[in-house]
């Protein structure tokens, strides 16, 4: 039992901090998922390319594909530091999900071709998995891919496409085997947005971000844009989701907690510092507990990886906790701050309007499947209850 960073890990942490000090002015920190300001977006893309140039987007990838071959804990340390600064890292569908799919099921040639580009963020990829009828139940997707000579003809509709308006490629899951169902016969493609038949309609969201419906109308896609094997899509997606790098979700909450704690120390209510209010103290204690829960869940992942142990509880427990904690955590933040917490950034807004933004963002806890579905996985795969 130990929770300790080696001197090498501490110096890596310092290297990350130095990079952020140099490249990320505090006023440019923002939540890239929920900000559509064009200038901020440009900054974020440039910033992300700088991270890519250091090799850090592919920090854990094998060196032969442009990665640095570093262990998951280094990715987690980087993620902790980036989250503490709210670093606007964009394009994670490319260097995260797409790369995860390739690493899980791509051929050597495909990995050699795509990964270095993704690691530099030369390619900007949007997500084309979910469909209007296939959300938590992704395996019910209906978009089809039909061979036609050397090409594929892809036809269908995707939804929730985050960052679609900025992307050049769509990571597309399509049913390539006619009449296949559920997990079989799904193939992955990278579809260029500029092909004939690709169109979008925008769907702004409650968080302030922009998602899209993406329509694929008999889009003719060259065979080289298929990734992984024909029919191997489901495995790639699952392993990309579950086998990806270890993300420091706790630091996201920790950053918010520290902001709220600072607010409570600096503000008063009824002539008394907020931090001395007995109810506020209990609520702060609850927030601190949730941060610690998330931290230990992250560390458990690292520990399991180090010990080559399978994740406990079917890998679903931490996902469930994270999804269910998010609304509760930010609702408590608002209760602490009080009625003015409903104000967006402005002169009178406590914490510069952050509490208001967190509140809206907190409704975005369904990506990758709802907590209700993850509870089923936890109960059946994790606890062995019958399906």
């Amino acid at each position, binding site marked *: 039992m130990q929770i300790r960073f080696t001197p090498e890990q501490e110096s890596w942490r310092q290297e990350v901090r130095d990079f952020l000090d140099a490249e990320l002015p505090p006023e440019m920190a923002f939540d890239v998922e929920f900000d559509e300001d064009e200038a901020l977006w440009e900054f974020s893309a440039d910033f992300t390319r700088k991270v890519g140039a250091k090799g850090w987007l592919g920090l854990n990838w094998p060196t032969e594909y442009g990665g640095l071959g570093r262990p998951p804990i280094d990715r987690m340390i980087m993620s902790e530091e980036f989250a503490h600064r709210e670093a606007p890292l964009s394009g994670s569908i490319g260097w995260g999900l797409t790369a995860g799919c390739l690493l899980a099921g791509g051929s050597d040639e495909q990995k050699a071709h795509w990964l270095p580009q993704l690691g530099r963020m030369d390619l900007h990829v949007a997500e084309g998995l*979910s469909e209007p009828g296939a959300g938590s139940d992704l395996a*019910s997707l209906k978009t089809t891919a039909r061979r036609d000579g050397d090409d594929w003809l892809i036809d269908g509709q995707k939804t929730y496409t985050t960052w679609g308006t900025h992307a050049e490629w769509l990571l597309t899951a399509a049913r390539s085997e006619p009449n296949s169902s559920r997990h079989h016969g799904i193939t992955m493609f990278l579809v260029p947005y500029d092909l004939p038949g690709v169109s979008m309609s925008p*769907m702004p969201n409650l968080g302030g971000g922009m998602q899209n419906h993406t329509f694929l109308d008999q889009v003719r896609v060259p065979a080289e844009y298929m990734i992984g094997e024909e029919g191997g899509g489901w495995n790639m997606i699952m392993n990309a989701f579950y086998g990806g790098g270890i993300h420091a979700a706790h630091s996201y909450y920790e950053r918010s907690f520290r902001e709220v704690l600072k607010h409570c120390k600096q503000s008063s209510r*009824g002539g008394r510092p907020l931090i001395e209010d007995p109810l506020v103290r209990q609520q702060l204690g609850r927030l601190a507990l949730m941060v610690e829960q998330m931290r230990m869940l992250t560390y458990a992942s690292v520990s399991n990886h180090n010990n080559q142990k399978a994740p406990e509880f079917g890998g679903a427990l931490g996902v469930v906790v994270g999804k269910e904690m998010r609304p509760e955590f930010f609702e408590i933040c608002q209760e602490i701050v*009080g009625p*003015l917490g409903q*104000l967006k950034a*402005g002169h*009178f807004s406590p914490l510069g309007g952050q509490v208001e933004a967190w509140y809206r963002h907190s409704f975005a806890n369904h990506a990758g499947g709802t907590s209700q579905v993850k509870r089923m996985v936890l109960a059946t795969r994790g606890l062995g209850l019958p399906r």
Partner: protein
Amino acid sequence: MIDLEFDEQQVLLQQSARTFFASECPLSRVRELEHSELGYSPDLWKKMAALDWAGLSLPKTQGGAGGSLLDLYVLYLELGRALVPSPHLGSSVIAAETLARAGSAAQQRCLSQIASGDLIVSPALMEAEGDYGAEAVQLAAAPTAAGGHRLDGAKLLVPYAHVADQLLVLARTGPAPDATTLFLVEAEKKGVDIEGLDNTAGYPLFAVRFDAVELSADAVVGAEGAGWETLKPALDRASVLQCAEIVGAGEAVLEMAIDYAKQREQFGQAIGKFQAVQYLCSDIAIDLHLSSLLARQAAWRVDEGLPHQVELALANAQASEAAQRMVRQAHEVFAGHGFMLETDLQLYTRRAKYWQYNLGEARYHFEAAVDAL
């Protein structure tokens, strides 16, 4: 006799309000109004006034319809269901009822204009610490040589200040916790400055700054030093209507969630067949039904002049928490779909955040209930 049903006239009023708002203020219109310059429709407001709703609870002698709080309650169910933006709660309830009860003859002159929808009075209560109640008032009203007062400070979350003709301002006139005085102040007065406050709900809320605003002695409403007591009866009544608005909206949210759960299929069946989704929908139903029962009781007790501090506070605590819980559970039913602005649910979600805090959050009302026990 225990009978929790509305009477025939109330049922008729509710029906006509539902029909009226369905045609005059569908959710598509609510979306437009949120992004319009004024944030509400003066035209719709005039039509509501023409139906006697702007003066529904004012005495007939003041141009009102002499309705009860329960009459207002059914109207607010429909205001909530349809998410109608209007200055009604601030102007027609808090301000008008306070002036009708405690205003001078001169101050009461504006009542018929409130009832006709021609004049708007906005209450200015909250301040920078965000607390509800007399103790939190810091806006200074200092006595002037001329026998009046001078206001210095700022009020926050003032609804409809941008179209208000008058402001009903609670200010501090002494060091004792409850030493406040209520003033009726022309919004155009020199030194009064208004600034919009962007908020979750997209509701017309404002900061109003008072920079050495000189008031004459006749600006005082009710007794000097008794500002909170002067306001309290109207605030109590308004808080019950805030509950009603939440209940009306909750009905719409429950219907939406049930419809979606029946229609949306995943894993080969309607999601409403999954027990997890059944729990979410039944959570909403439970919060809704309890909020409704408690709020109706509070409204009736107020109308009857019975002691009501405990019942009213508990109704408010229930509704304030339910406002958040109901929309959260609905979002779990809608999952990613509910996060899209194109889905109507989010209109309710954002408004619920305003309602949760308006006229005291749960913490305040639990305290108030225990105080009265």
